[in-house]
C-alpha cells in the first residue's frame, strides 16, 4: 500500500484539516467532535440539511457543504459511519429553528447512528426529518435484507434538496423533494480494481488482470459477481440494463445522466462510458437534459465507475440548475 498519508489513523483528521484550510471562505471545521458547517450556518429561517457517512468517498460529503447544498457534513472514520456525538452537535449547529433534514445513505451503521442522533436532537428541541437514500439496483430490495445501498444518487439528492432549502421550502417540503429524487434515481457500479483502506493496508478484494466486479458499492465491498473483463461499451450496457429495468422510464422522459468516477479512473474513460450511456438512453427514447461526469462519490482510489439515471420533472430540473457554491460543485455564483 502506497498512499500520500502520514499515520493511517490520522488520515481523516489531517485531510479534513487541509480541507478546512483550503476552503476557509466556505466552511468552518470542528475537529472534535468532527463536523463541517457552512460558514454562514444556520441561515435564518432556512431548513438545515445534513449528511454524513464514512470517509473515503470524497468529495462527498464535506465537498458539498455551502450555498444551495448541505448545511453541515459529518465524516466518520474511513468507510465507517460517524457517531451520534458528531451528528447531534452538527444537527444543532445546522438548525435555525426551521428544522433539519438528515440525508442518510442506507447502510445499517449509518441508519443506526443517524437514528440515535435524530432522537437525541429531537429531545433537544430540533425537528428532524430523514431521507434515506437507497438507489443501488445491484442490491435486491427486500424487507428481509438490509435493503439497497445509497450510492451515486446521494449527490443528486443533496443538490436538489439543498436548492429547495436554499429557496426557503419548509422542513416537510425539503424532505419530500429529497425523497422524490431518491424515488426517481437508480445507480449501478463496476470496479476494475479494489481500493485499500489505510488501516487495513491490503486491497478490499482481489481481482485478476482479466476480471471485474459488477454491482459494487462505494466501500470496497465485493460486488454481486465477478465477470471477465469487457470493453467499455459492454460494461456500460451491463450497468444500464438493470437501471432501466428498475426505473422503467417511458419514452419521452427527461433524465439526468450522472457518470461517476470511483477515484482512480481517468476522466477520459468516464466520458467514453458517458458516450455509450447516452446512446442507450437516446435509443430508449429518453432525453438527456442534464449531465454530470466526474469523481463525485468515490471509494478511495478504486478504478471503476457508477452510472446514475434520474428521471427529472420540471421542478427537479430547476432546483438542479439553481446556484450552488461548494468546494466540489459550483455554478451560478
Amino acid at each position, binding site marked *: 500500500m502506497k498512499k500520500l498519508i502520514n499515520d493511517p489513523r490520522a488520515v481523516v483528521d489531517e485531510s479534513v484539516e487541509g480541507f478546512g484550510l483550503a476552503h476557509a471562505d466556505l466552511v468552518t471545521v470542528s475537529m472534535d467532535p468532527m463536523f463541517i458547517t457552512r460558514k454562514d450556518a444556520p441561515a435564518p429561517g432556512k431548513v438545515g440539511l445534513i449528511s454524513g457517512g464514512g470517509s473515503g468517498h470524497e468529495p462527498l460529503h464535506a465537498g458539498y457543504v455551502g450555498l444551495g447544498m448541505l448545511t453541515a457534513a459529518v465524516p466518520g472514520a474511513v468507510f465507517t*459511519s460517524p457517531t451520534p456525538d458528531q451528528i447531534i452537535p452538527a444537527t444543532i449547529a445546522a438548525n435555525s429553528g426551521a428544522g433539519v433534514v438528515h440525508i442518510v445513505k442506507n*447502510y445499517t451503521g449509518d441508519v*443506526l447512528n443517524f437514528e440515535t442522533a435524530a432522537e437525541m436532537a429531537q429531545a433537544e428541541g430540533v425537528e428532524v426529518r430523514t431521507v434515506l437514500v437507497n438507489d443501488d439496483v445491484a442490491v435486491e430490495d427486500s424487507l428481509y435484507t438490509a435493503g439497497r445501498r445509497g450510492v451515486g444518487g446521494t449527490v443528486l439528492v443533496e443538490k436538489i434538496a439543498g436548492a429547495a432549502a436554499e429557496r426557503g421550502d419548509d422542513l416537510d417540503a425539503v424532505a419530500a423533494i429529497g425523497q422524490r429524487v431518491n424515488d426517481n434515481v437508480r445507480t449501478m457500479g463496476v470496479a476494475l480494481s479494489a481500493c485499500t483502506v489505510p488501516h487495513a493496508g491490503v486491497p478490499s478484494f482481489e481481482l485478476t488482470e482479466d476480471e471485474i466486479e459488477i454491482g459494487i458499492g462505494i466501500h470496497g465491498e465485493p460486488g454481486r459477481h465477478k465477470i471477465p473483463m469487457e470493453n467499455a461499451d459492454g460494461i456500460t450496457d451491463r450497468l444500464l440494463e438493470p437501471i432501466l429495468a428498475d426505473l422503467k422510464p417511458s419514452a419521452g422522459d427527461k433524465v439526468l445522466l450522472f457518470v461517476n468516477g470511483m477515484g482512480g479512473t481517468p476522466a477520459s474513460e468516464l466520458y467514453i462510458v458517458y458516450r455509450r450511456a447516452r446512446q442507450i438512453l437516446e435509443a430508449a427514447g429518453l432525453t438527456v437534459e442534464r449531465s454530470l461526469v466526474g469523481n463525485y462519490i468515490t471509494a478511495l482510489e478504486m478504478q471503476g465507475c457508477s452510472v446514475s439515471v434520474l428521471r427529472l420533472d420540471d421542478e427537479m430540473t430547476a432546483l438542479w440548475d439553481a446556484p450552488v457554491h461548494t468546494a466540489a460543485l459550483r455554478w451560478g455564483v
Partner: protein
Amino acid sequence: MVGQPLDAAWAIAWLKLSAAVVAENRLRLIELDRSIGDGDHGENMDRGFAAIVAKLAEETPATPGAAFKLAAMTLMSKVGGAAGPLYGTAFLRAATAVGESATLDPAALAGALAAARDGVVARGKAELGDKTMVDAWSPAVDAAASAAAAGADGAAVLDAAAEAAEAGAVATDPLTARKGRASYLGERSAGHRDPGAASSALILRAAARAAAGEAA
C-alpha cells in the same frame, strides 16, 4: 469452577480483557470483514475498546452497571458503523438490567446477557440465522440461562455463554447474510464467518476469563 464475585472489579477486568483480545484480533477481524464487508470491523472495535480503557484510567465505576454504562457510552461515541450502536445498545441494556447492584448473581447475569441480546435485536432487527452478531449472542443467552437454572456459578454461566457464542460464530460460516453489509453479497457471503459474531465470541470469552480470576 469457583470464580470471582461478579462485581465492579470483574466488570472492569472484563472490559480490559476485551480490549486486549480485540487489539490482538484486530487484523483477524479486519480480514473477516474485508471478505464480506468493508474491512473496518477490527479497526472499529479496537478504537472503541481502547477508548474504554482510556476512560477507565480516568474513572473507576463502582458497580457492574456503571461499568457497562461507561462501555455503552464510549462504544456509541467512538465506534460508529453498525457495530458501534449495536454493541452500545447491548451494554446499555445490560446496564439497565442490572441496575445498581454491587454484584451479580447467576440469574441477574443471565438476565443482563438476555437484555443485551434483546437490545441488539431491537436495534438491528436481525433474526437468528441472518449471519450477524445475533448468531453468537442468542445461543450464548440460552446457554447462560440453562446454566444459571441448573445452579452454576457466575464463572460457569459465562463459560457456557462463551462456548455457545464461539460455536454460534463458527456456525455463521455457511450462512447467507440477510442483514448488514454482507447481505449485499447475496450468496457470495456464504463460506465466510461473520465478523460481528466473531468479535462477540471474543468479548464473551473475555467475560468468562475475568470471572475465572484472570487479571487484565
